[in-house]
């Protein structure tokens, strides 16, 4: 039985010789070009990150404003739907006929506003593009 390790030295020599015999024509400025590309990308991604950092408070402001507006609209709708049947007896009868309480309508409004907001956002982000 012959151990394959016997061939190790021979193989190592064959591979080393094969490696030595392989020659490559290097472009003279290949390393410099790679360095420049990496450096340029590094600077660019640094700039993008810094812009994103700078824009973060503004984005937060927009988010808070949007949430506040949405909350105001929801509360307004909630109050409007709640007081609507008291102002109009016909509407009160209609709600009773539909087995649909003013509270259900208010809750529906509560859910509808954020849902519409989300739908509009997705429409803007996907379909328009």
């Amino acid at each position, binding site marked *: *039985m*012959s151990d*394959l390790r016997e*061939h*190790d030295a021979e*193989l*190592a020599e*064959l*591979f*080393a*010789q*094969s*490696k030595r*015999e*392989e*020659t*490559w024509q*290097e472009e003279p400025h*290949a*390393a*410099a070009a*790679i*360095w420049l*590309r*990496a*450096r340029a*990308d*590094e600077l660019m991604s640094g700039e993008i990150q810094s812009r994103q950092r700078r824009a973060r408070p503004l984005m937060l402001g927009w988010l808070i404003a949007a949430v506040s507006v949405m909350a105001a609209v929801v509360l307004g709708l909630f109050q409007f739907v709640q007081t609507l049947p008291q102002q109009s007896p016909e509407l009160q009868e209609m709600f009773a006929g539909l087995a649909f309480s003013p509270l259900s309508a208010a809750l529906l409004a509560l859910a509808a506003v954020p849902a519409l907001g989300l739908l509009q956002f997705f429409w803007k982000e996907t379909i328009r593009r």
Partner: protein
Amino acid sequence: MDEPAFEELYRATAAGLRTYLYRVCGERRVVDDLVQEAYYRLLRSKFASENHEEVVRYLFRIATNLLKDHWAAAKKERGGTVKSEPLAAGPSPSTRLDVHSALGALRPADREILWLAYAEGYSHAEIAGIAGLKAGSVRVMLFRARERLVRILRPNAKGESR
């Protein structure tokens, strides 16, 4: 790493990395792209080590991963198995040709670990780190790959595989 250090590293390692990738994949055009990308990713990775050998191993690891990504993309593009190109013969009948064509008859994974072990002289643990394998698996894979290579190089040899 500053620019002179990078240029020094490139000068010292580019030919070896090219030969490794060429022996494993056999496509010169692909090798050029992979070499550039490997050095670029090394720079972007901010891998910091005072140990030159460690940096080179990391570079080989990046290149190996890029090669695997290249094969995966090619396989996806062709919608089936990808057969690496047969390793083209060189101009002279030499050792280079023997090893090159013998490697060409092996699977890419075998070429990879054989080259790392015998041409680059890496240990099982180092090969495992570069190829993303377990050291134990490398030992077994290397044994089998070496067996297959010896059978190709010495087709008439008897009793060499256990």
